[in-house]
């Protein structure tokens, strides 16, 4: 029997009801995260990965709503049935989140020490002095050199990498069970990226924390997660262990993402691209949402929305190729590419 997961999400639907219609940004997403596990979520911009992570914290702003029927359970607690005050106490305490842009995520008018010290004061009765001591300790933990002195620095006096370390420190102040990292390295230099990922891995190893890493960069996922969820058009299209996924990607979208990854040492004139763009959440395509951009698509894909087929141990894929694998032998120009050429 597998232990109860730390977080389980079932049929999460987050819709935005605007005057232009209903944007189904997240449309029936189910997954779970075990304690101390590191899970990656990949996909292009607009596929719903950020909305998914904000939904977990119930931080969706108007006009967005998490639709009835969705279920988010953390440590056995149904988050969607909590009142606002109880939910507020979950944030930071049990689930914390770090963001993409470390410059705008820190408050420019307070020292980093003051900003870290504020976090426990929101949730607990703790003296200023104790909070400050914990802030300094945390700065040391996230690898800020000379933390006692650095705590007096303002955000603008730190480099991007340092600021992201401070952000991580802020998120970890209350030892959350789950850390959601939304594109934590996208705004950083490549060398700094590696350091931040290393730090996250190290912190996860040291604590019992789980990490949900959201990124558009498969390279980041390969380095620092054990399981990968690929999202497309508001749905999960493939989920597998990281090795399995890289060795045998099943969904044509995952294949496309991998082909689009720049690789050192290979000689290619141009980077491979997936033709077309993510469709509009106001009107997802019928059938398989990827069929217009897919090199294998056939009539069935236009007609029939594929379920998540189980294709291996812990490996699922939302593609009809699972039942008609012979179609993979005959790729063709995708619909989106043909339309583009004709225009």
């Amino acid at each position, binding site marked *: 029997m597998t232990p109860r997961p730390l977080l389980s999400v079932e049929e999460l639907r987050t819709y935005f009801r605007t005057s232009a219609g209903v944007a189904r940004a997240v449309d029936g997403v189910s997954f779970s995260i075990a304690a101390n596990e590191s899970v990656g979520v990949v996909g292009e911009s607009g596929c719903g990965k950020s909305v998914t992570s904000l939904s977990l*914290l119930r*931080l969706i702003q108007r006009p967005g709503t998490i639709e009835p029927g969705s279920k988010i359970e953390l440590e056995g607690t149904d988050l969607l049935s909590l009142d606002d005050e109880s939910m*507020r*106490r*979950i*944030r*930071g*305490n049990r689930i*914390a*989140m*770090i*963001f*993409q*842009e470390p410059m*705008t*995520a*820190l*408050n*420019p*008018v*307070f020292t980093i020490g003051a900003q870290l010290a*504020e*976090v426990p004061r*929101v*949730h607990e009765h703790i003296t200023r002095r104790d909070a400050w001591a914990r802030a300094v300790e945390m700065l040391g933990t996230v690898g800020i050199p000379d933390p006692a002195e650095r705590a*007096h620095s*303002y955000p*603008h*006096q730190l480099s991007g990498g340092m600021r992201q370390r401070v*952000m991580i420190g*802020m*998120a970890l*102040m*209350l030892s959350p069970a789950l850390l959601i990292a939304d594109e934590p390295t996208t705004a950083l230099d490549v060398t700094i990226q590696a350091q931040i990922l290393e730090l996250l891995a190290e912190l996860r190893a040291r604590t019992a924390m789980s990490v949900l890493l959201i990124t558009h960069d498969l390279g980041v996922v390969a380095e620092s997660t054990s399981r990968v969820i690929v999202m497309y058009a508001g749905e999960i299209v493939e989920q597998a262990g990281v090795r399995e996924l890289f060795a045998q990607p099943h969904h044509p979208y995952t294949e496309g993402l991998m082909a689009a990854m720049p690789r050192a040492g290979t000689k290619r004139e141009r980077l491979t691209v997936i033709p077309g763009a993510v469709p509009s959440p106001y009107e997802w395509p019928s059938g398989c949402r990827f069929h217009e951009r897919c090199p294998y698509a056939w009539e069935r894909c236009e007609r029939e929305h594929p379920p998540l087929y189980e294709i291996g141990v812990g490996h699922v894929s939302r593609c009809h190729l699972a039942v008609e694998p012979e179609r993979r032998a005959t790729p063709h120009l995708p619909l989106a590419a043909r339309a583009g050429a004709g225009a």
Partner: protein
Amino acid sequence: MLAIRWLCAAALIAALCAALRRFAHGSGRTSRARVVLARYASHPSAVIALVALIVLYVVSAFSPWLATHDPIEILAQALANHPPSRELLFGTDFAGRDVFSRVLYGTRISLSVALLATSISVVLGTAYGATAGFIGGTLDTVMMRLVDAFLSIPRIVLLIAIGTLWAPLSITSLILILGLTAWFGTSRLVRAEVLSLKEREMVAAARALGARDLAIVRRHLLPNVLSPVIVAATLGVAGVIVNEAALSFLGIGIPDPTPSLGNIIHDGTPYLATAWWVALFPGIVLVITALACNLAGDGLRDAMDPRQVDR
């Protein structure tokens, strides 16, 4: 005796300037205030304006001490419209009152009225604008259309209307009226700032860490609108001083015999051809005060520009 008083005042100013300079260039951790101060110090006109304001403020604060005569006492009917002399530095007005002492006291009253009225308008405008911007939606629309309506009435016309309706005004009610009609611009400014600030990731990050709405306003929004508000307030002081003077000049501001810069000018206007000194000296002080406020405001705006966060 008088010389000693002036010397003391001068020493005080010098000490203040030295302290300010030490603070700006002091060793140790660089605080934001220090950065702003150092940048402010690089504007010569703003520094001169600040010194002028400090001098004006200190001089007016010590006016009972520095005045050569009682500002209300009629020295002698024979001394009416007496030209400036060694004894009567700025001469006397039509009633035979010492203009120098009246200007000192008048500056004090004008500055106090302006500072208090501006405080009212800043607090009100910030609270109003922050509420509208943070809550948003229909409330925001209604609140801001109301501000638009008030802004469409020229302020001086509004002031004259209120002033004549409730004449004669006490100083307290004058402060209230000046303050209550000056906050519309500030509220607009604060609302616009709050609208852009609340979309920043730091607000999302604070929410993600469980911060309450009130904490977000207090820790993330208000401190970050402080710079533009301070600038607006400095410029607002100049506006209020001029408006108060205008009301007093029109005879509906601070009532005689209490001196204010505006009513001293008012008293001197009929005698401009014969006793020019009565209107000229308070006029100069008024211009210097308003100009200094504006220059200091401009300097502050540059020094606090958030786009120049790096030293």
